[in-house]
């Protein structure tokens, strides 16, 4: 049997697992996946590999004593063994006062994250895709280092109250750093899709190549406050730090940007420009996501920031009960609404500014203001009178996504991108921001 189980096969296997349970409550999470990757550097393949993985995690509870055991073999003896082991661990465990019990069966929305085009990727498919990229890099006399990885898998869960959930999905990510042979120019591109048919490796390679060649001979500008155009990949790595902070418990506890004095939170408060709307939606066609969380909670379309106002923070089931509100799981995707302008139009409407391809090594500096630091990389350009005039040397920035979204000038057409920091995919518009703070120069290329 393939490690990728159908819904019916997953249901049958999970029913068998639960039939062995002697605990008060039992919940089983199942996954199967096939992953493949190919990595290249200095214009030749350096490593390639594949991974076939399946895993079953069983959580047993006696009262509030909880134990988890996992196993990757699914014969009957192994299934019984993992249930027994989780029960033994539960009996050894201290009580967990935050254990909330398993959920009743739920209704989930439809979400299509599985594409045959991606599921049928073979090592040859990867080699051919990368071959195109290498050929282009060779012909442009560029030194290419890239990574292509694909994933085909499913996850499923069942608990002793009869909840069952199943979600199959596929994904493919491609990234490339192209450098000029003398190391004076560097360009980058990253693309990620559920559907491999949407990935155009050659087109992506051309973007990186153009940025590499265009970034040769970068000039130094004084650090300071500049109007910037952040391409979606650059905007995503800043915005996700805002998303990660949207947890009610740390806000209620007074240790988050979303805290207000006196144990209050910023829910209902306007925190950024009123054109900013950010939501999650598992059924989004361009960025589908699992319609359920790991504990079986429903994922549905949720507004997080609407017209600049904080609409929701996530509440775990325990914390929601403490606060007398409804639980709201952390989202499985995030979509930021935008405008209609293309990146080219944003550039052509800019009198003076800096175009940023990628931001790198992002680290939080102050959790109270969400101040972040990091650097531009692989394609930073000076814009004057609506045109890219020349490449500029990389900058270090110190900026908060909150301040940045208050200094919003224009949003472009949203597109799907991948965070180069977390590897998570988002939908983000290119953002034109006023007074973005660059604090020093870097010699890095």
């Amino acid at each position: 049997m393939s490690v990728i189980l159908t819904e019916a096969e997953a249901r049958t296997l999970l029913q068998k697992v639960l039939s062995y349970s002697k605990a008060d409550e039992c919940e089983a999470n199942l996954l199967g996946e096939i992953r493949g990757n190919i990595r290249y550097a200095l214009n030749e393949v350096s490593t390639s590999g594949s991974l076939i993985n399946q895993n079953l995690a069983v959580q047993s509870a006696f009262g509030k004593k909880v134990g988890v055991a996992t196993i990757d073999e699914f014969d009957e003896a192994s299934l019984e063994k993992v249930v027994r082991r989780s029960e033994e661990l539960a009996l050894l465990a201290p009580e967990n006062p935050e254990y909330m019990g398993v959920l009743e069966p739920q209704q989930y929305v439809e979400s299509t994250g599985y594409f045959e085009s991606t599921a049928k990727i073979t090592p040859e498919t990867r080699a051919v895709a990368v071959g195109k990229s290498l050929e282009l890099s060779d012909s442009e006399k560029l030194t290419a280092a890239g990574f292509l990885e694909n994933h085909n898998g499913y996850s499923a869960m069942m608990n002793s109250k009869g909840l069952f959930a199943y979600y199959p999905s596929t994904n493919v990510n491609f990234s490339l750093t192209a450098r000029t042979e003398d190391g004076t120019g560097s360009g980058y591109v990253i693309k990620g899709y559920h559907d491999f048919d949407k990935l155009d490796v050659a087109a992506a390679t051309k973007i990186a190549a153009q940025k590499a060649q265009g970034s040769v001979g970068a000039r130094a500008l004084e650090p300071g406050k500049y109007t910037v155009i952040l391409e979606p990949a650059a905007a995503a790595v800043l915005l996700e730090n805002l998303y990660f902070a949207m947890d009610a418990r740390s806000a209620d506890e007074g240790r988050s940007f979303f805290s207000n004095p006196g144990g209050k939170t910023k829910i209902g408060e306007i925190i950024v420009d009123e054109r900013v709307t950010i939501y999650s939606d598992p059924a989004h066609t361009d960025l589908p996501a699992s319609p359920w969380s790991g504990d079986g909670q429903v994922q549905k379309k949720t507004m997080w920031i609407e017209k600049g106002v904080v609409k929701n923070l996530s509440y775990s089931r325990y914390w929601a009960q403490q606060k007398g509100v409804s639980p709201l799981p952390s989202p499985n995707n995030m979509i930021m609404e935008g405008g209609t302008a293309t990146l080219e139009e944003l550039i052509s409407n800019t009198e003076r500014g800096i175009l940023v391809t990628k931001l790198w090594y992002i680290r939080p500096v102050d959790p109270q203001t969400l101040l972040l630091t990091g650097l531009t990389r692989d394609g930073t350009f000076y814009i004057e009178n609506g045109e890219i005039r020349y490449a500029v040397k990389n900058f270090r920035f110190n900026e908060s996504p909150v301040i940045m979204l208050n200094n919003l000038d224009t949003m472009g057409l949203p597109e799907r991108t991948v965070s180069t920091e977390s590897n998570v995919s988002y939908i983000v518009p290119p953002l034109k921001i006023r007074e973005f703070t660059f604090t020093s120069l870097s010699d890095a290329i």
Partner: protein
Amino acid sequence: MKRRNFIKLSGLGLGGMMLSSVPILGNAVSPESFLDSGMDVALKKRLADAALNAAKSKGASYTDIRIGRYLNQYVVTREDKVQNVVNTESFGVGIRVIADGCWGFAAVVDAKSEADTAAAAAEAVAIAKANAKLMKRPVILAPQQGYGEVSWKAPIQRNAFEVTIEEKVDLLLGVNDAAIKNGANYVNSMLFMVNEQKYFASSDGSYIDQDIHRMWPVFMVTTIDAKTGKFETRQSLSAPVGMGYEYLQANPADKVAGITTRYNKGYDMLEDVIAAAKQTKEKIGAKSVEAGKYDLILDPSHLWLTIHESIGHATELDRVLGYEANFAGTSFATLDKLQSKAFNYGSPQVNVVADKTQVGSLGAVGWDDEGVKTKQWDLIKDGILVNYQAIRDQAHIIGEKESHGCCYADSWSSVQFQRMPNVSLSPGVGPLSVEELIKDVKRGIYIIGDGSFSIDQQRYNFQFGGQLFYEIQDGQIIGMLKDVAYQSNTQEFWNSCVKVCDERDYRLGGSFFDGKGQPSQVSAVSHGSSTARFNGVNVINTARKV
């Protein structure tokens, strides 16, 4: 063929700690199973010989096999609650071969028989032969002698895996209680423990059995100012170490007195958390730093991370050559700079050694993951770049006859590659104490503990924060500062190093989960130094109004 299970510890209330993802390798097991001795060495040798013979008969010119059992235990608490106790074990075999001049690798979980390892060896050869068709340059492997049947054990005094969960939980809940009693609003505390039981064999004639232990006790305290709603945090001043549970038994000699107590080979977690709770309150009322140039006095609990980022990663030969260009980046410390024998990485006070042998360090092993006996070597001598970190298939590139012995894989299922050894700043030669160092500083900042960190992809421009900042005026510490970060350029910074304290102040810091590669692998590495002074470094103020 199966690979590791890679789970992320998330939702464990790690708060603002810099543990964005903690990898857990292997299957959950009961803690009692940690006490099993694992597979007998004689059986491991039979499995290894089966793989070596099978690979050779299929046409491999070189083969190595790693039979690994990896144990992990993490205990996670906050305030009066145990949030999680994670116990995992992973066992399997990874086989690497050279055939037709090209590397091939295959791994198998729970290998129990000679047939299992022989089959995986044959698969590795088949992969090597397939990949050889795409290869442009064949692998050149530095020669390596065989050592026969040998073993190495970390010199620990108390195996952390033999200490009961109850004792560990009692320690952490006691620490948390002390933090709250001393005025903190919140506290998270954790113990991370790792045991690698590794057997390596190669066609060079080595059969190496090793037992490696690591641990890291860590906490974060948060205190909120009720009036303003502002909060401050302080992380533990512990270091991750290559030691057993004895690290948590601090002797008076392990404590370094000063403006706050710091720790050497033993750590007093309870004492440190009490100091931390008080210091978060002091931080709330501290003066916000005035941006500008300062002379910095950097404690080893802070300086390790600057060494790690600006010297450790910059001197990895695979980065220098471009193999990590798409992810971690390349390096400014290019081959021509090494070959010039005149590149001033730092001032003449700056001597930096790479090392895989230092007792109690995270990098210490007897042999690396390709059977090379470990050693110490110079990276920077009297301020000049003199070497890189290189493994067997890289040594020829820099004209070396042998590997440096710094090859590592984070699991039996991962391919071993060049990983950072301990990289440490040597103590100053003349006698110099921290007090004597501070005495001459007119306008400076004394930084203790590591904080926010960021560096560019060629390791030029960096920015570091810290845990505790003290203002120095005319040779005296006059009070605490906050909102401090310094920005510099690697070469400029190390050339501004004017003094390093002597060996009495030498201590190790380190990283327990250092990431590299695609797919990413973790490794643990220590960095030693004595307190050092850097003149005229640019300090910024990180406070913002939102």
